């Protein structure tokens, strides 16, 4: 439908260098008015940098090349200028203020004024109007922290509309969303297209890109590889992957023959209450087990209580423990602190590696040993050589891309950071690893490697729990999958029984299914 539409934006020969790194070299991007244009590429390909150049985060003059927007050259020197021109970027990490209301957030920095004072009445009215446009039905006075991440995303988009957006840029909009919220967001984008809003979408979720975009520009190593016309060229996921990695990935999951042993870890009748509102139960009578060498999946919607379950088991690091028992190798163990959990061979790789998984000030070697300093210290005194050797061994084993283990973790890409986090927990010699969204925000190639690592861990006889919001990932990786809904385990499926429809059904129903 948009083949003959006028060109809204053209970026020509954009080159952007950082000290020592050429992040973009001669990148070209042509976006037609009224289309949804996806930008794909592995982490580090330069997608976000390109968008920062476009939105003026990197001001005119710090890059070379031309931007033509609405037919005339654009030279933005800051975000404000690009926003005034109708280019609004919504970042992966949402820029909302948790303690302010929806209305306040929508108009932050853009407050409607009347005689100098903020006109809250008009703001409220406009907010309701904007919220209706994005399909958000909430009280506009609700605080951001009280709504889920899916709705927060909608608030961000409403905020963009408040600025009279012509070109909406979404950086990984569905990364933190569950399937239902993602679907809603994608429908919303389709609606915008019908109303003539142009969108640029950066995403790792190829199925979404395939489903929604009109054209796709693929970047690799800071260069434009190609631009695909989705409708015309008959593009599918494999085609996109080939462009991104420069080769065909024969399978999204490494081949693996599980070697499953006895049940060695069991949780019985686990009850946990919310840390602040004590009447809210986040884990309700949950029981499950893990066998040696088994990869067990936990499927559920965002907010189903999977992370809460995992963290409460991991040394009561979440919520208020009420009752429940944990058995390991047939004996009951009490895990009252994270240190207890680590000593008993548990490891928890958190879903948010930047916020709670890593100290971003650390380098690779300090991060690797951080959860078990006792292994490299004698009477509390650290041995630098042992530390270095241990970190180096994991760097090689996991093929973490970094010149040395002296490299700061903040400088690594998402996939490599995740490998450091995995190394950190492998270093603790765990028997059971709980991996919470282990591939979130990681590109296809790195995902494949992470899957391989998970399978190797299982082959060593460890139990692995994988919590994931991507159903194909769970189905492709896990030997057995539990479904969780509103703090209850609602089902248990063997690999052969697991298909997206059945899982989805169990993930959205309170009715407890018969377990095997």
């Amino acid at each position, binding site marked *: 439908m948009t083949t003959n539409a006028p060109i809204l934006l053209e970026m020509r020969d954009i080159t952007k260098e950082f000290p020592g790194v050429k992040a973009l070299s001669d990148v070209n991007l042509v976006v037609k008015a009224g289309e949804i244009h996806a930008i794909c590429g592995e982490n580090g390909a330069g997608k976000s940098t390109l968008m920062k150049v476009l939105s003026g985060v990197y001001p005119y003059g710090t890059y070379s090349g031309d931007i033509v927007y609405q037919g005339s050259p654009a030279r933005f020197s800051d975000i404000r200028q690009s926003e005034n021109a109708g280019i609004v970027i919504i970042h992966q990490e949402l820029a909302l203020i948790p303690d302010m209301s929806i209305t306040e957030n929508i108009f932050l920095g853009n407050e409607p004024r009347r005689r100098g004072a903020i006109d809250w009445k008009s703001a409220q009215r406009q907010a309701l109007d904007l919220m209706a446009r994005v399909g958000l039905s909430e009280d506009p006075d609700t605080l951001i922290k009280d709504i889920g991440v899916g709705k927060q995303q909608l608030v961000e988009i409403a905020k963009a509309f408040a600025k009279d957006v012509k070109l909406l840029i979404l950086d990984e909009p569905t990364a933190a969303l569950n399937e239902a919220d993602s679907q809603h967001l994608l429908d919303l984008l389709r609606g915008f297209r019908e109303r003539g809003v142009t969108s640029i979408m950066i995403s790792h979720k190829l199925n979404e890109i395939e489903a929604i975009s009109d054209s796709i520009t693929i970047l690799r190593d800071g260069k434009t590889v190609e631009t695909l016309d989705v409708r015309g060229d008959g593009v599918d996921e494999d085609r996109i992957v080939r462009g991104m990695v420069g080769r065909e990935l024969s399978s999204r999951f490494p081949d693996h023959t599980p070697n499953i042993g006895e049940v060695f870890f069991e949780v019985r009748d686990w009850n946990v209450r919310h840390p602040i509102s004590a009447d809210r139960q986040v884990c309700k009578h949950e029981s499950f087990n893990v066998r040696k060498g088994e990869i067990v999946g936990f499927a559920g919607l965002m907010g189903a209580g999977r992370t809460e379950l995992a963290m409460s088991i991991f040394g009561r690091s979440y919520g208020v423990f009420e009752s429940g028992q944990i058995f390991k190798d047939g004996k009951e163990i009490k895990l009252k602190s994270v240190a207890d959990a680590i000593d008993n061979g548990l490891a928890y790789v958190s879903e948010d590696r930047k916020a709670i998984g*890593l100290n971003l000030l650390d380098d690779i070697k300090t991060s690797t040993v951080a959860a078990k300093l006792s292994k490299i210290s004698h009477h509390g005194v650290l041995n630098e050589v042992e530390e*270095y050797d241990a970190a180096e061994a994991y760097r090689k084993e996991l093929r973490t891309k970094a010149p040395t283990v002296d490299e700061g973790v903040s400088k690594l890409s998402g996939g490599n950071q995740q490998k450091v986090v995995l190394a950190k927990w492998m270093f603790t010699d765990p028997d059971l690893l709980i991996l919470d969204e282990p591939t979130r925000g990681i590109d296809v190639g790195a995902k494949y490697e992470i899957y391989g690592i998970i399978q190797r861990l299982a082959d060593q006889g460890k139990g692995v729990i994988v919590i994931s919001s991507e159903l194909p990932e769970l189905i492709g990786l896990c030997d057995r999958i539990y479904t969780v809904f509103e703090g209850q385990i609602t089902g248990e499926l063997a690999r052969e029984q697991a298909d997206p429809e059945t899982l989805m059904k169990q993930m959205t129903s309170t009715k407890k299914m018969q377990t095997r």
Partner: protein
Amino acid sequence: MSRFKDLQKNLFGGTTSNARQFGMIFTLVAIVLLFQFLTANNLGVGFGDGLTLRSDNLIALFQQNSYILILAIGMLMVIVAGHIDLSVGSVAAFTGILVAKSMADWSLPWPVAILFGLAIGAVIGAWQGFWVAYVGVPAFIVTLAGMLLWRGANQYVGNADTIPVPKGFQDIGAGFLPEVGPDTGYNNLTLLLGLAACLAVVWRELQARKTRKDMNAEPAPLWVSIFRMAVMVAVLIFVTLRFAGGRVGTSFPISGLILVALVLIYGFYTRNTAGGRHIYAVGGNSRAAELSGVKLKRVNFFVMMNMSILASLAGMIFVARSAASGPQDGLSWELDAIAAVFIGGAAVSGGIGTISGSIVGGLVMAVLNNGLQLLGVGSDRVQIIKGLVLLLAVALDVYNKSQGRFSIIGSLTRPFRRDEPSKPAPTSDTGNEPAKTTVAG
């Protein structure tokens, strides 16, 4: 040029802890030489006759600042853990008056009185640590309250009077290494101390090279190591001779000795032990530290308690030096200690900083203070200049970091484990911009 770059990299941004310490000392030396030149110029005499490097001035510099530097050690750990302690001056004053009273009124022998003082510090620290670690009141508030509380307690106990302390006690603040052995024209113990320091420098450099080799990592080029050792040893010999060759009866001060011992102990603790690393982990990302099994409350309690113990020691040294405890002791010490830590490269948001950096930061302020006084600049203008130096030093560092350029203070004082990479790594989409997130100090 490449040779110079090589030198700069290895001296300032190299991969061993010694490299950085050397860089810091280098900066300090530059400031000292500046004032040496200015004071000589002022008097119209040769460079060698400037006032800054005279024996008596160096000795006084150490004696007058040892207690601030002791506070800076504790403050560094507090700030790295992500807190602040505003109460140190008041804690010092309260301990000082109680210790003075214990000797004057209850006739405690002075060694017992010192232990008594440290115990007071521990109790005060436990009190403050309790509120910070176990109740979760921000340290800023707890210690602001403490600042009022212990200041008031000092004046309540002492009736706002001054209480003198006995001679034996005065030695910890005003005493020197005694004269022993043959008459060499120098203080023999100070010479021995200097010799030990030189040997330690050489040993550490060799040790650092060995460690790098054991890691199969490239140690700094040999000529850099030798150059570094040579300069360090030369500085140490010069300083030793100055301290040892002053007026008869003066030498290296006892308070300086206490300081050196504390720097070595705490430097080792923060750098080389699991406990020390936990402090950095808590300050860098407390949630991540907690999920790695670090006992958050215990770490926070420890740093607050430790700070108060060091504050009580600083208070006693000050009382000893001024021969009496008074109601105005320790006023605004917290600010000097905090300034030293930030000039020394610590981050406002925690997680970054070193003991040696803070000591150099403190010495920079001390030399500045001393040099300006020698030049006859009034205390009003000294304060203005010190304030501006603090602001500019940190601002320059923040600016340089935000531009992704070589950060002077940061690279001089970043701890051994926060090495700059030698070359850029594969970067993520968002990771290839200059880091803006670390608030520089």
